[in-house]
C-alpha cells in the first residue's frame, strides 16, 4: 500500500476525530471554564513579563516594605519591598513550566512502563508492576522531600523529583488499556506480517492508548503543580527563582501570617488553586467525552 | 372479578429533547392462574409496561394515563407507601438472569428473609424456616441460604430469584425475560419449575420475552408489542396459527421453526421507529409490506377477529368491510 496515502488517511481520521471530540467537549461547561482559566494563565505566563514593570521587583524604599495594596502596588509589597503582583505574574512562568516539564517526564515513564508491561506480560509485567506498586504505596511527599533534600535546591532537581515519583498511576492505567488493545485483530495482523515488537507498540498500541494518556496528563499536571508549590513551600525550591511556591515559602518564613499580611499570602495561593482547578475541570470533561458510558448515563 | 385489569396505561420518558413515548394505551387483563406472554423486539416497551404496574420506573419516567386494578381495587393513584405494600405481596417480579438482581454483599437467605418480614408478620426464626422451605421447593440445598450470590451458577441464581418471588405468595408474578441468558437445558428446567409452582399456587403471570417458543410452551394468551403499543392480543394458539397483524406475522416468520427443519429466519426490514417522534398513523407502516395509503395517515382502530382475539390494523377493517 502507498504509504503517503496511509498518512493522508490517518490525518483525515485524526481531523475527523478531533472535530467530533470538540463538538462533544464544548457542550461541557466545566471543561470550557477550565480551558478559559488555563488560557488566561498561559497568556499571563507568556506575555506577563512584557506587561508588568519588572523593575518594581527590585528593592524599593524601606517605607514600602510589607505594605497593603495601594493604587501603585495593586497587591501590596513583600518584606523586601517587591511588588506582589509582579511576583505573581513572573511566578506563573516558572510554576507552569516546572509543572509541565515534570508532567512530561512522568507521562513518558508511565506510558513506557505501562505499554511494555502490558505488551510483554509474564515476568516483565510481574516485575514492572511490583515496582509500580512500590511507587504507588510509598508516601509521595516524604519521598519527594528526601530526594529533593539530597539532590539540592534547583529547578531541574524539582522537575526531576516530581516526574520520577508521580508516574505509577499512569503506568497502571496504560497497562490495562494495553492489555485490551493487544488482543485486537489489527495487532494480530501486524504480528502475522512480521512487524517487530517496537513497531507494534509504537504504531498500533500507542495511538490507541493515546486518548487515555491525554486525559491522564491533565490530572498529573494538576498534581505536579501542587507538588511544586508544596516542595518550594517546605524549603526545597530554588531560592533564586520566583515561583508561587517560593513566594509562599518566603511569606511564611518571614512571618506574614502573624503580620496578617493577607495580600502576600492570598494571591500566589489563589493562582495555584485556579490552575489546579482548571486542570481538574478539564480532566473531568475529558473523562466524560472519552467515556461514552458516563455520558449516556445522564440521559 | 379479574385478577388484573390494565386499561390505557401510558408511560413516557422525559428527555432533554422531549418525551419518549415508550408505552402507550396498553390494555391487558389477567385471570387467576392464567399466564399471558408479552412479546416484541427489544426496546418495544415490554419492560416499561410491566414496571409501570407497580411504578418501579426511573425518575424521568412519567405514567401519563391509565388505570390498573388488582381484584377490582384501583391502584393507579396509590401513594408510594401504599405501593410499597402492594409490591411483592400482590405483584412480585423475577428479573432477567443476566442481571445482578441479587445484592452481591448480602447472603441470599437474608435477602429472602427481608422480603418475607416486610410483608408478613413473622419472627426472624419463622422467616428463616420459610426461606429454607422455599429453597427446598426450588430444589436448592437449604443449607445454601448462607451463601452469597456469586457462589451460585446462573441457573441456581434464577432459582433463588423464583424462591424470593413466591416467598410472600403473590397473586401475580411478572417474569422479565426470566430465562434469557441461561443455557438451553437450564432454561427448560427453570421454566418448568416456574410453571409447576405457578400452577400449584394459582398465580397469574405476565411473562415478558422475545422468545416465542417460551410463550408457546407456557402462556395461555399472548400480547404482541411494537414500538410502545400492543398491536395484537389473543389466545396463544390462535395468534400463532392465524396471526392477524402483519408485524405478528413477520415476528413469527423471523423466528426459527420450533418443530421441523430450521429455515433461514426472515428478518423484518428496517429499524424500529424512534419513539421520541414515532411515525403518524400506524407505527408499523414504514416497515410493513402490506401498507397502503391509509396506514400512514390514520391510527388503526381495534378490530375483533374472534372472541378474545383482536388487533390494530387497517387491513382487518378492510377485510371486515369487504
Amino acid at each position, binding site marked *: 500500500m502507498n504509504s503517503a496515502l496511509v498518512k493522508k488517511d490517518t490525518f483525515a481520521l485524526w481531523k475527523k476525530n478531533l472535530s467530533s471530540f470538540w463538538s462533544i467537549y464544548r457542550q461541557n461547561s466545566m471543561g470550557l471554564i477550565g480551558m478559559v482559566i488555563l488560557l488566561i494563565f498561559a497568556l499571563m505566563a507568556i506575555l506577563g513579563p512584557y506587561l508588568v514593570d519588572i523593575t518594581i521587583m527590585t528593592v524599593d524604599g524601606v517605607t514600602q516594605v510589607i505594605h497593603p495594596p495601594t493604587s501603585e502596588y495593586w497587591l501590596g509589597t513583600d518584606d523586601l519591598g517587591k511588588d506582589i503582583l509582579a511576583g505573581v505574574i513572573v511566578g506563573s512562568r516558572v510554576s507552569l513550566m516546572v509543572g509541565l516539564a515534570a508532567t512530561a517526564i512522568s507521562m513518558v515513564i508511565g506510558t513506557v512502563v505501562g505499554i511494555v508491561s502490558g505488551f510483554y506480560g509474564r515476568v516483565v509485567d510481574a516485575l514492572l508492576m*511490583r515496582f509500580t*506498586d*512500590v511507587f504507588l*504505596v*510509598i*508516601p*509521595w*511527599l*516524604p*519521598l519527594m*522531600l*528526601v530526594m529533593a533534600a*539530597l*539532590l539540592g535546591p534547583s529547578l531541574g532537581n524539582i522537575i526531576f523529583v516530581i516526574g520520577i515519583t508521580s508516574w505509577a498511576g499512569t503506568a497502571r492505567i496504560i497497562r490495562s488499556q494495553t492489555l485490551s488493545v493487544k488482543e485486537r485483530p489489527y495487532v494480530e495482523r501486524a504480528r502475522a506480517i512480521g512487524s517487530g515488537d517496537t513497531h507494534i507498540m509504537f504504531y498500533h498500541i500507542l495511538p490507541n492508548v493515546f486518548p487515555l494518556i491525554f486525559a491522564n496528563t491533565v490530572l498529573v499536571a*494538576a498534581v505536579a503543580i*501542587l507538588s511544586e508549590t*508544596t516542595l518550594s*513551600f*517546605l*524549603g*526545597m525550591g530554588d531560592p533564586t527563582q520566583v515561583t508561587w511556591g517560593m513566594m*509562599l515559602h518566603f511569606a*511564611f518564613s518571614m512571618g506574614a*501570617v*502573624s503580620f*496578617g499580611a493577607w495580600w502576600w*499570602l*492570598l494571591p500566589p*495561593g489563589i493562582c*495555584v*488553586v485556579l490552575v*489546579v*482547578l482548571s486542570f*481538574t*475541570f478539564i480532566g473531568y470533561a475529558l473523562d466524560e467525552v472519552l467515556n461514552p458510558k458516563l455520558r449516556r448515563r445522564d440521559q | 372479578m379479574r385478577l388484573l385489569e390494565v386499561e390505557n396505561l401510558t408511560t413516557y420518558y422525559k428527555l432533554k429533547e422531549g418525551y419518549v413515548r415508550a408505552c402507550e394505551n396498553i390494555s391487558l387483563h389477567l385471570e387467576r392462574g392464567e399466564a399471558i406472554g408479552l412479546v416484541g423486539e427489544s426496546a418495544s416497551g415490554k419492560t416499561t409496561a410491566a414496571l409501570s404496574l*407497580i411504578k*418501579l420506573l426511573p425518575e424521568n419516567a412519567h405514567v401519563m394515563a391509565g388505570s390498573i386494578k388488582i381484584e377490582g381495587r384501583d391502584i393507579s393513584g396509590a401513594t408510594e407507601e401504599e405501593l*410499597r*405494600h*402492594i*409490591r*411483592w*405481596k400482590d405483584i*412480585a*417480579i423475577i*428479573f432477567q438472569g443476566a442481571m*445482578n*438482581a*441479587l*445484592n*452481591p*454483599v*448480602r447472603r441470599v437467605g437474608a435477602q429472602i428473609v*427481608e*422480603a418475607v418480614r*416486610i410483608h408478613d408478620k413473622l419472627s426472624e426464626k419463622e422467616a428463616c424456616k420459610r426461606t429454607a422451605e422455599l429453597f427446598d421447593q426450588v430444589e436448592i440445598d437449604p443449607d445454601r441460604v448462607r451463601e*452469597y450470590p*456469586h*457462589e451460585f451458577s446462573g441457573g441456581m441464581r434464577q432459582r433463588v430469584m423464583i424462591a*424470593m418471588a413466591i416467598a410472600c405468595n403473590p397473586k401475580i408474578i411478572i417474569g422479565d425475560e426470566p430465562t434469557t441468558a441461561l443455557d438451553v437445558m437450564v432454561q427448560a428446567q427453570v421454566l418448568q419449575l416456574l410453571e409447576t409452582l405457578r400452577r400449584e399456587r394459582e398465580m397469574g403471570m405476565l411473562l415478558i420475552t422475545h422468545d416465542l417458543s417460551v410463550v408457546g410452551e407456557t402462556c395461555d394468551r399472548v400480547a404482541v408489542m411494537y414500538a410502545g403499543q400492543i398491536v395484537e392480543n389473543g389466545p396463544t394458539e390462535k395468534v400463532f396459527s392465524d396471526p392477524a397483524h402483519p408485524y405478528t406475522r413477520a415476528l413469527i416468520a423471523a423466528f426459527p421453526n420450533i418443530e421441523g427443519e430450521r429455515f433461514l429466519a426472515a428478518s423484518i426490514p428496517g429499524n424500529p421507529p424512534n419513539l421520541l417522534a414515532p411515525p403518524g398513523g400506524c407505527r408499523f407502516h414504514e416497515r410493513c409490506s402490506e401498507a397502503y395509503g391509509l396506514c400512514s395517515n390514520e391510527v388503526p382502530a381495534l378490530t375483533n377477529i374472534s372472541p378474545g382475539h383482536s388487533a390494530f390494523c387497517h387491513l382487518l377493517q378492510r377485510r371486515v368491510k369487504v
Partner: protein
Amino acid sequence: MNMRGYLLRKFIQASITIFIVVFMNFFLFRIMPGDPIRVLIRNPKISADALERVREQFGLNESRLVQFWIYLRDLFSGDLGTSFNYRQPVWDIVMERVPATVLLIGTATVLSIIIGVLLGVIFAWKRGTRVDIVGLSVSLVLYSMPTFWVAIIMVMIFAVYWQIFPLGGMGMPGTFYASAWAELTSQLRYMFLPTITFTLILIGEYVLIMRSSLLEVMREDYMLTARAKGVNNRNLLLKHALPNAMLPVVTLIAINLGFIVGGTIQIETVFSWPGLGRLMYTALTNRDYPVLQGLFLLITIAVIGANFCADILYRYLDPRVKS
C-alpha cells in the same frame, strides 16, 4: 482461595515492598551526588584525620555490600543512627513524636470519613439540586488547594484576626491547669484548628467518591429488586446501597494514606504541631540526614502496614473477593 492463602500472599507482597523501600532508603542516601561523608558531617573544614575516623565509624570504607549488610543488621536491632541535631538516637526522637501525629491523623481521618460519607450520601440523594451543585463545587475547590495554604488561611482567620484559637503548638509544656477539665479544654483549643484544617483537606475526596459510588450503586439491578420487594427508603439506603457504595471508600482510605502523611507534614509545619511531620520539616531544614532517613523508613513501613490492613478489611466487606 482461602483466607490464609490470601493473607500470606498479601503479607509476602508487603514484605517485598518493604525490602525494596529499605534498599532504596539505603542507596538514596549514598548514591546521591557528593561524598556521603561530606553530606553526613556538613563541615567542609574537617581534618583528614577526623574524616577518616568518621568514615570508619559509619563503615564507609567498607564495600557497598558490606555497608548494606551493616545497615540491615543495625536496622533489625532498632538502631536508626544518631541525630546530628539532637545528639540522640533517631528511634527515640521519632517515638517521642508518634502520639501527637497519631492523635492528629486519627481524629481528622475519622471525622473526614464520617462527615464526607454523610455529605456524599446527601448530595447523591439530592443530585442535580442546588445543594448538590454547591457541595460538589466546594469539594472540588477544597481538593485543589495546597494543604499548607489552607492551614495558613485558617490560622490567619481564626488565630490572627479573630484570635479565638492559638496560633499553633500543643500547649505550653509545664503549664499548670486548675482542673482536668481546664486542661482538656485547653488541649482541645490547641487541637481544634489543625484537626479541622486536616478534615477539610481530606473531606473533599470522600464526598466525591461517596457521591459517585452511591449514584452508581443506585442504578444497579439489585436496587430495583429491593424496591420491588417493598423495602422502604431508609433500608434501601442503609441495607442495600451503602454496604456496596462504601467499598470504594475503603479503597480510597488505603490509597489516601500516603496523601494523609503528606498532609500531616504540611499541617504540623504551619501549626508547629510537635509530631512526626514537624520533625521531618526540621530535619529537612537542618539537613539532619539520619533523622530524615529513619523517619522516611518508618513512615513508609507504617503506610505499607496500614495498606495491608485495608486489604484485609476490604476482603472482609466484599464477599466476592473471597472466591
